[in-house]
């Protein structure tokens, strides 16, 4: 079931094109990760999907009444407004005390209810943001560089929690990340973005794609093997059959290279 889809999506700021020709969709129960260098339009894509950025081209369709949980890259809170963690988690919808405390425990920061937001460390703050997103019981969870400020074990348990959420609730999950290694292990599908979609598909397909290597170098390909464990994808994950018409500026071998590597995945 498709939760949200972009067709021919473009976005620009003050005449500068940040995104063009983006075709993508997120289905219930899949984890999709967007990778790309700085300024590649990752956050613009997220903000367009949220409806904050108005597309300059194409369109976005959402399933009617879609509940979205959103963890932003960062949130500027200043101390003009006194705001406790518990009050923040109740914005805009009231949450029960028990619900809040259980969720804080679940994201690994139990007992923070009474603390002011401004007094939290970066890692605590990210977890509180995740707690807020999860309290909305999201059908689509959007995480924009959500592991910033987390240490290594924190990052690992963060991704485990995301995996649990997907398994328990069947939510679709869209992540933006710099954390290439973990991303590759945790995602069903990777979208490699650089103003447009360079390539997308299963992690091992994308890391082998020349476009991906051109952006991230070859190094990640080797380390990926360490992390890639046997996810059994019951859905037809490798959806990189994007319209060749869009790829006019690209290496003509591109589509072919993908298909070639796709076959073993289907066979297995």
């Amino acid at each position: 079931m498709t939760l949200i889809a972009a067709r021919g999506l473009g976005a620009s700021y003050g005449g500068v094109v940040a995104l063009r020709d983006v075709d993508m969709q997120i289905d219930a129960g899949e984890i999709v990760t967007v990778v790309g260098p700085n300024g590649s339009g990752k956050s613009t894509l997220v903000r367009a999907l949220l409806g904050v950025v108005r597309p300059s081209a194409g369109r976005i369709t959402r399933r009617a009444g879609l509940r979205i949980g959103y963890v932003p890259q960062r949130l500027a809170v200043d101390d003009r407004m006194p705001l406790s963690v518990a009050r923040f988690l109740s914005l805009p919808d009231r949450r029960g005390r028990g619900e809040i405390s259980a969720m804080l425990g679940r994201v690994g920061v139990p007992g923070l209810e009474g603390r002011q937001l401004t007094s939290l460390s970066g890692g605590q703050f990210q977890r509180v943001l995740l707690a807020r997103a999860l309290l909305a019981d999201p059908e689509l969870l959007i995480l924009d560089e959500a592991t910033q400020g987390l240490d290594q074990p924190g990052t690992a348990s963060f991704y485990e929690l995301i995996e649990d959420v997907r398994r328990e609730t069947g939510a679709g999950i869209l992540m933006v990340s710099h954390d290439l290694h973990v991303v590759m292990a945790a995602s069903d599908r990777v979208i490699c973005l650089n103003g447009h979609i360079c390539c997308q598909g299963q992690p091992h397909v994308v890391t082998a794609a020349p476009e991906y290597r051109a952006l991230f170098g070859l190094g990640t390909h080797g380390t990926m093997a360490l992390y890639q464990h046997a996810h059994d994808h019951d859905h037809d994950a490798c959806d990189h059959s994007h319209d060749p018409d869009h790829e006019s500026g690209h290496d003509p071998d591109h589509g072919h290279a993908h298909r070639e590597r796709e076959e073993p995945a289907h066979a297995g």
Partner: protein
Amino acid sequence: MLDDFLMRAGLAGLAVALAAGPLGAFVVWRRMAYFGEATAHAAILGVALALGFQVSLFAGTLAVALAMAMTVSALAGRGLAMDTALGVLAHGALAFGLVAVSFLPAVRVDISAYLFGDILAVGRAELAVIWTGALAVLALLLWRWSALLTVTVSEDLAKAAGLDPARERLVLTVALALVVAVALQVVGALLIVAMLIIPAAAARPLSRSPEMMALLATALGALAALGGLWGSLAFDTPAGPSIVVAATVLFALSRLAPRRA
């Protein structure tokens, strides 16, 4: 009871404090001080137009303040350099208003009553308008409270939660114009923003939640209104500025209190 001018003045002051407390909290949280100045100063132009066209003062100031607030809001959406744009609008509006008033027959207009307020001259009818306006602002803010807070914390989070930030901004814009129209006779166009910002700022160190800050801002504003009125009688000083002086003293005292959050 309402026969006493002092009683009417006190009640008018309380009404302004009631509306200005929670709205002032938003003005502080959202850094809308200059926005408030532009809207308040536009009220003088509203006074000139109302007197010139012989319509109700309240309607005239409300209409012009609303027009100014909408203009500023639209400019903010286009990402202009806001402090400069607001500086132009705030002072331009005031100057246009003063010039416009000068065209009116001098006998009819005591401009200082609109610049600094004339709370001791508030009549029964005006008191009714002031209370109606103040309660309308309060009802509007209470109705949208949770959404307004969310949009203030983060427009992106609000959008993800299905709220419309533009709509909530409009609520604040309308509330601000209403408070300006209501407070014009109480503290005057030049000091309206003081009644928004100072009580809220004084409430901040004593508060642990946004709700508490809004409530305390109202309480401190009410205290300032009554204290200022008393001071104005005791020392024979102008009432509007005396109220703001009282608020400023409360602000200074609040800085001495240990910060609670």
